[in-house]
């Protein structure tokens, strides 16, 4: 008998590629959806992306209900409640979320209330507290990084309670994720780089943390290969639709990978500097990734070495002695960060963010230890360890 065991779930239908938006009417019809509410934010609406979605639906003889565009950058329980009220009052029967991670999280929580007919969504907060399917949910990401279109989690800022409330349930997974290159074509280079490095971190941590399994590995490898190949070309030519699609696919695959093999220390540190100093999550992940991999190397040298194939290609992999591949993988990630810095100014260090005072590092280290992602890191992390990684990431 072997001790080998893993779980893997990815029931989201992927609708990806050229003219993908135009498949939405069919997906609505097959789910008996006639009046979806669109959830978005004002920036996405101003960029014309919601109009593009509506045009694609209406031109396919579909109908659209109200547009709720009051989602704040960090999500909010008020937005969840307000959106759910509009949904119920307008007789909607599905949600189409168009936006980044905050829109996706808010729309998922709205769908809980919409399906349950209102009330306080907090009663469903926590782990697996939903007991049946929710109304149809279509996710259309406008960034290529968070992977929220394929994850079963929603984190909502609850200002009244002063906490971030999290919901986790398989029923929060969208029914359909639509990846259309038109949705990310206008994403500014800095945001493109930060979100791509977010996806890279999802994939690399999924590949090196404790819950890694054969299926999450496969998704992670494919994501790393795409981001390594396409990030620089897209930064050099933002209108490259093929590259945009490759990065969107990579973000979704990395999302599937880390949904089934959760992330570790990089995210613990990034969550903390994000909460304390507003450092963009993807930029923070990019800053911490190489240092954390060096710290974790004693527990994941082999896996890290295998990643070189997907980071650098078969020739460099074959030319690198097996005992040096882990270090070569980290060097490749550092080179990618450097390239992104030169092309769009993505910060390489905490100092370059201009937001984090050096004297705050001890406090950041202490708070990071309480982040839930620490559980899956392959190496136990002490306060001194976290502080050492932060010091290395400083400059």
């Amino acid at each position, binding site marked *: *008998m*072997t*001790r080998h065991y*893993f*779980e893997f779930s990815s029931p989201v239908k992927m609708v990806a590629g050229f003219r993908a938006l135009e498949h939405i009417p069919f997906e609505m019809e097959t789910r008996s959806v006639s009046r979806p509410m669109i959830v978005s934010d004002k920036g996405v609406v101003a960029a014309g992306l919601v109009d593009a979605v509506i045009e694609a639906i209406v031109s396919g003889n579909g109908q659209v209900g109200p547009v709720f565009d009051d989602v704040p950058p960090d999500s909010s329980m008020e937005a969840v409640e307000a959106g759910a009220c509009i949904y119920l009052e307008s007789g909607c029967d599905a949600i189409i979320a168009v936006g980044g991670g905050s829109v996706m999280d808010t729309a998922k929580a709205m769908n809980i209330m919409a399906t349950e007919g209102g009330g306080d969504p907090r009663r469903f907060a926590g782990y697996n507290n939903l007991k049946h399917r929710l109304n149809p949910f279509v996710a259309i990401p406008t960034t290529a990084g968070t992977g929220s279109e394929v994850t079963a989690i929603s984190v909502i800022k609850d200002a009244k309670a002063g906490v971030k409330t999290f919901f986790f349930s398989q029923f929060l997974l969208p029914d359909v994720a639509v990846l259309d290159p038109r949705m990310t074509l206008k994403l500014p280079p800095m945001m493109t780089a930060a979100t791509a490095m977010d996806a890279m971190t999802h994939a690399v941590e999924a590949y090196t943390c*404790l*819950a890694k399994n054969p299926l999450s590995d496969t998704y992670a490898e494919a994501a790393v290969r795409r981001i390594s190949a396409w990030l620089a070309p897209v930064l050099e030519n933002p209108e490259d639709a093929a590259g945009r699609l490759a990065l969107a696919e990579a973000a979704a695959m990395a999302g599937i990978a880390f949904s089934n093999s959760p992330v570790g220390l990089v995210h613990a540190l990034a969550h903390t500097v994000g909460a304390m100093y507003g450092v963009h999550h993807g930029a923070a992940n990019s800053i911490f990734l190489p240092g954390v991999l060096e710290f974790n190397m004693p527990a994941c040298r082999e896996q890290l070495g295998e990643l070189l194939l997907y980071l650098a290609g078969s020739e460099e992999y074959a030319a690198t002695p097996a005992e040096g591949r882990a270090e070569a993988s980290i060097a490749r990630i550092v080179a990618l960060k450097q390239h992104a810095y030169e092309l769009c100014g993505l910060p390489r260090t905490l100092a370059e963010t201009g937001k984090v005072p050096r004297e705050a590092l001890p406090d950041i280290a202490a708070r990071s230890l*309480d982040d839930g992602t620490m559980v*899956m890191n392959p*190496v136990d992390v002490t306060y001194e360890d976290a502080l050492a990684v932060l010091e290395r990431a400083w400059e």
Partner: protein
Amino acid sequence: MSEPLHPSARTTPVAGRGLSYSVQRRYVVFMMWLIARLLQAASTADRAIRREVVDLPEGFSFSMRVRSGGPALIMRKVGDRLGTVPTSSTARPALAFEFKHLAHAFLVLSFQESTPQAFANDRLAIDGEFPSAMKVLRCLNRMQAVVLPKFVARRALKSYPSIGLLEKLTLAARIYGRFVIELLTRGPK
């Protein structure tokens, strides 16, 4: 995680037949009783654990349980230490560590699978606020590192902390001493 990449990569096979569920249940019930009492003692005797407990919210309580009414332990912060709560208590703890099945609790509590690996294998889930969960996990890890022989603790933990033999023996003696005193003064309940 042991992953069967290739037959040549196989390590020592694990015995196929396990103990009966009724034996596993009795073992898990006993271990949960023991863990609760040792953690109660450790929260008084060990400075590192006490520091973590002090940082927990006032009145905080947590449970470790097997799903669907299986064996459980419940603990509550009382002052600056942890105390046991009868499992018949109806108050819902702020935090729960829940094993999906009795057999999974047995794997972990018999040190065949580490706690972090049980989380990774989806055998054990956290329901509640993560900051408090991480503090409780650090308390449990520290206690295991101190009270268990090193070769057993290594199986239970991600990594064995740097703790000298003299320090370990001194702390273990204090925790077991406190455990015995509590047992003699308050009884097994």
